[in-house]
């Protein structure tokens, strides 16, 4: 394996050892030793509780993220392509991009109730704006000489869009999708903790208030692993679509 992977492994092993030592020497409830967390994780896994909650959470994540990607890319493309659309929307998009989405949770409860729709809406809102902005920026930064070249060889507007603008903007779009994925995971957990106690979020609240720190850390660790895997997935798609270029991310 390459050196990056080796260093990654060394880093994880070092952290695990330090954690274990800290857990055994310090207060058990505050920092449970890693071995304790592992056995709690195993217990949750065997009981099926972790998996069933995880499936529920991931369903919300997938639905909200999917909507955010589709809508985010469409809106971003329109904003990048048409100045009128951009100026019509950019005020709100920019404001919402940096607004704390958690503040909207009560509104969403009013609108969508306490069901899965609200949770999907939270995931969507967490992810969509960064995708819009990156897509728009990608479209606006398309090298003008490519457009000129295409026109000179007789390209029509639709051909310019599909053969030049879309592929040229793809690295920026995928950067937005990657950042959106990270935000979607945050949205998922936030929704489950603040909105309705379901899925992974509910487990966090439950074990947290019961001081079951080993199980709590087991769940948190699971979230980290899920976040890592989903990011990796997006990266794989990204690599396939835009292997020709390094990405630019705007956040």
């Amino acid at each position: 394996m390459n050196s990056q992977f080796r260093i990654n492994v060394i880093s994880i092993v070092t952290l695990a050892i330090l954690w274990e030592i800290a857990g055994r020497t310090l207060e058990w409830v505050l920092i449970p030793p890693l071995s304790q967390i592992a056995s709690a994780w195993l217990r949750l896994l065997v009981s099926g509780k972790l998996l069933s909650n995880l499936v529920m959470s991931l369903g919300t994540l997938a639905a909200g993220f999917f909507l955010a990607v589709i809508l985010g890319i469409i809106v971003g493309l329109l904003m990048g392509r048409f100045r009128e659309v951009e100026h019509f929307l950019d005020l709100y998009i920019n404001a919402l991009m940096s607004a704390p989405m958690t503040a909207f949770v009560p509104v969403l409860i009013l609108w969508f109730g306490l069901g899965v729709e609200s949770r999907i809406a939270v995931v969507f809102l967490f992810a969509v704006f960064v995708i819009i902005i990156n897509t728009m920026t990608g479209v606006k930064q398309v090298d003008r000489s490519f457009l000129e070249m295409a026109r000179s060889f007789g390209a029509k507007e639709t051909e310019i869009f599909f053969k030049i603008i879309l592929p040229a903007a793809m690295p920026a779009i995928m950067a937005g999708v990657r950042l959106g994925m990270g935000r979607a995971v945050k949205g998922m957990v936030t929704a489950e903790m603040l909105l309705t106690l379901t899925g992974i979020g509910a487990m966090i609240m439950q074990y947290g208030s019961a001081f079951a720190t080993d199980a709590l850390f087991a769940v948190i660790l699971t979230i980290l692993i899920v976040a890592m895997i989903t990011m990796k997935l997006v990266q794989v798609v990204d690599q396939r679509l835009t292997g020709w270029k390094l990405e630019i991310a705007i956040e």
Partner: protein
Amino acid sequence: MVEIRGVSKSFQKTVKDNTAEVRALTDVNLSIRENEFISIIGPSGCGKTTLLKIIDGLIPHDSGQILINGKRISAPGPDRAVVFQTFALLPWRTVLANVEFSLELRRVAKEERTSIARNYLKRVGLEDFELHYPHELSGGMQQRAGLARALAVNPLILLMDEPFGSVDAQTRQLLQEELLELWQREQKTVIFITHSMDEAVYLSDRVVVMTPRPGRVAEILDVPLARPRIADDVRRDPKFVDLTNYIWDSLKKAMENGH
């Protein structure tokens, strides 16, 4: 074959709240013969690239007209193809797919366009690089691909916008020689924009000297050098030296009169 009659062009230039009209070209007249290699030379900002874009039909002109074989043009057409200064190769396409791009837009069937593209890549010496991406090639090789893309659509007129302006000096000389060889075999009209006097004289049948903005034709000069031209011999030829010196004087004069 190409008739440029009284072509003028102005741009609106807006700086803060002030909009000013900039005259880029004024009353440009020029007629270009079939299969002629003609260079247009002039100081930066004289509108020579604008003129090329107008001939290509990429930008409209305000007055006058451009005729190609007697027909007025106002939009890009299959009789013309451009080689760009910035190469304008699509970074997500391989060299082969870049050359195919021009054919794709002309609705040439997949198999046919691959074989045409391969053929032209061979002619510019890139046959071993067809699956490389542009960023993997040197500037000179990228421009060879740009040239292949333009030739692939078999245009009557090749419009070249300072095509060798961004490659190093040795590569530039090499590309010039290759271009001449290609031109002699392909039989095309070439309109070549440059700001190198040496390049203009070495390549061309005639050299058009333009004035600074607003660009006008200051002078049209015949190049009295026999073809085929061997680069090293030509550059030592007194006629070559005289003509480049003359163009330099002419450019200087045009610049003094202009400002």
